[in-house]
């Protein structure tokens, strides 16, 4: 085989180098820990009932019980029934149905007041949701959004970059044009426009917005790699042996550019997790039955000056730790994967 494809060696070497990098390993451990949390939350083993209102409104964290001036919720207030008020001579169109209900339930049922916690491990939000549970559930959403969107963007960027760099000529011109268009439109307007097209249909919208706007960086690098590689000997040889274009592009060249792609992917995850916060600020966040770090930070936006800092702190810290670890891991990966870099 005339192909100097060093992939297996590259990956083994990279792993050996990574293992020697203490910071890299710690970051890896942190990232893996977060992924475990995501996995557990996804499976419904933890943080399943984050929507339950377990505490009083703005319950403070246990380690910081403050001077409560919101009182517990009064429940079971009496309400008027249609036949107890003046109908001003009008006929109730539901008189018959209400009569039947009255016959079946002569006692006027009242809900019993619920018991709610005065403090929660990391405090509660305005409804009394447990912030700890929310952060965990939010990690699931934010990390999944970041990961899937990054994979989407990377796949898009890689395929376009590969095709563009490999075929060159008018194909390259076309994708370069597309790249030019996407990078020239103000990012803010691009988000608004794509968001408007997609409507608000849940988490998938955010993933699409991020994926469709985020492919350009990958494209540029992958295209450059393919430009470099397509005239290398091993590719020409594969071509001479009758390998199809697709085979040459994705079986022969792709493994040799994979380190570039992996680093880009990892960078995109970090970038997208942060972008989700800004999307939430602009109103394109997750729907109300989903919680994410972005939705928490935006909720907490007005809470700080009210002295309810715990949601801001919890979501901000959870996010900062993951993003830091992921960024350091990206650096470590880059160092481990790129043998040319000796520093």
């Amino acid at each position, binding site marked *: 085989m005339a192909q100097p494809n060093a992939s297996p060696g590259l990956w083994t070497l990279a792993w050996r180098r990574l293992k020697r990098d203490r910071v890299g390993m710690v970051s890896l451990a942190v990232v893996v820990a977060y992924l475990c949390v995501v996995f557990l939350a996804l499976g419904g083993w933890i943080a399943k009932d984050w929507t339950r209102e377990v505490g009083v409104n703005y319950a403070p964290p246990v380690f910081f019980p403050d001077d409560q001036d919101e009182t517990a919720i009064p429940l079971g207030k009496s309400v008027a029934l249609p036949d107890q008020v003046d109908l001003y001579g009008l006929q109730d169109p539901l008189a018959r149905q209400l009569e039947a209900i009255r016959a079946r339930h002569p006692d006027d049922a009242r809900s019993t007041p619920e018991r709610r916690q005065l403090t929660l491990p990391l405090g509660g939000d305005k409804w009394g949701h447990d912030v700890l549970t929310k952060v965990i559930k939010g990690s699931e959403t934010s990390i999944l959004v970041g990961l899937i969107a990054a994979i989407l963007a990377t796949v898009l960027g890689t395929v376009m970059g590969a095709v563009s760099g490999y075929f060159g000529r008018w194909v390259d011109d076309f994708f370069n044009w*597309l790249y*030019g*268009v996407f990078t*020239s439109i*103000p990012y803010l*307007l691009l988000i608004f426009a794509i968001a408007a097209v997609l409507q608000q249909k849940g988490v998938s919208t955010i993933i699409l917005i991020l994926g469709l706007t985020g492919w350009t960086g990958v494209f540029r690098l992958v295209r450059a790699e393919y430009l470099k590689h397509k005239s290398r000997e091993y590719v020409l040889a594969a071509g001479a042996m009758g390998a199809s274009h697709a085979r040459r592009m994705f079986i022969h060249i792709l493994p040799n550019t994979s380190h570039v792609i992996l680093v880009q992917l990892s960078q995109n995850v970090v970038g997208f997790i*942060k972008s989700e916060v800004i999307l939430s600020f602009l109103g394109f966040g997750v729907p109300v039955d989903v919680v994410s770090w972005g939705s928490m930070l935006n909720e*907490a936006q007005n809470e700080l000056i009210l002295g309810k800092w715990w949601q*801001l702190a919890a979501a901000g810290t959870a996010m900062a730790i*993951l993003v830091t670890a992921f960024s350091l891991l990206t650096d470590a990966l880059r160092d481990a994967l790129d043998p040319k870099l000796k520093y």
Partner: protein
Amino acid sequence: MNLGAFLIRRLWQMIPTLLGVVLLVFFLFNWVGGDPAYILAGKMANPDDIANIRHQLGIDRPLWEQLLIFVQQIVTGDFGNSWATQEPVSAIFRTRLGPSLILLIPMMLLETAVAVAVALAVSAWRGSTLDRSLMAVSTVMMSISLLVYIIVGQYVFAYLLGWFPVKGWSDEFWRNLTTYAVLPVLLGLMVSIAPSVRLYRTFVLDEIGQDYVRTARAKGLSETRVLLVHVLRNAAIPIVTNVLMGLPALLTGAFLLERFFAIPGIGREIILAVERSDFPIIKAATVYVAMATMLANLLGDLLYHWLDPRVHLE
């Protein structure tokens, strides 16, 4: 390739890109961008009023006709008046550009200066504790959301400590620069410095590995001199182009700072325009920023060539 031919070719290439931008924005916003007539008509408007407004704004015409008008507007540079306030669009951008620049240019200069200094420092002591801890700190810094920086920063530094005004903008350049822009600029730097440090560090390390550095060291030049004169001169090329190409994106990217600190900049204006479906402003913003981006890229390439004639213009 000679410079003139290069310039002409690049400028010529801008036309299809701009056309793509125009088409994309036009169709996206026309298709889904909302109908401003309903908000302009007020709360008691009847269908006739709506039709009247749509007619006056020209949005009842066929799409191709509207597109033609758009292209005409780009060629003449006159985007008409804002639908929401009747103010000429050009006047809006004229008044918004100043505040945006007062915010962005200091931010860019400080960011570059600090990032280059740190990058040089950590490269000089690469692999040391200083290098590692500075890199770690910068990673942590950029891991915190800008939104959190702004919320906490405004609360702590402007309100609790009273070091800066909470918000505001005046008519005087110096007052804006030295009073109102300070805190937003510093908060913006918190997130923007770290990526630059990391990037510039790689630029500097790229240069340090070059032969000429070894030669310079061999000649017995001091390490400081090698770094500051030889390495920096060469690393400056990618750094300057990087800064230049990042500028147009910054123009619209500072909307969070502009909103929280009540700075009348471009980003905030765009959000307002989208909220009101003020299409003339959206169109103008797109075209202006797209052109600025493309020109910045061209300028970056030229600069690259000028600083390092080895680089070929293609």
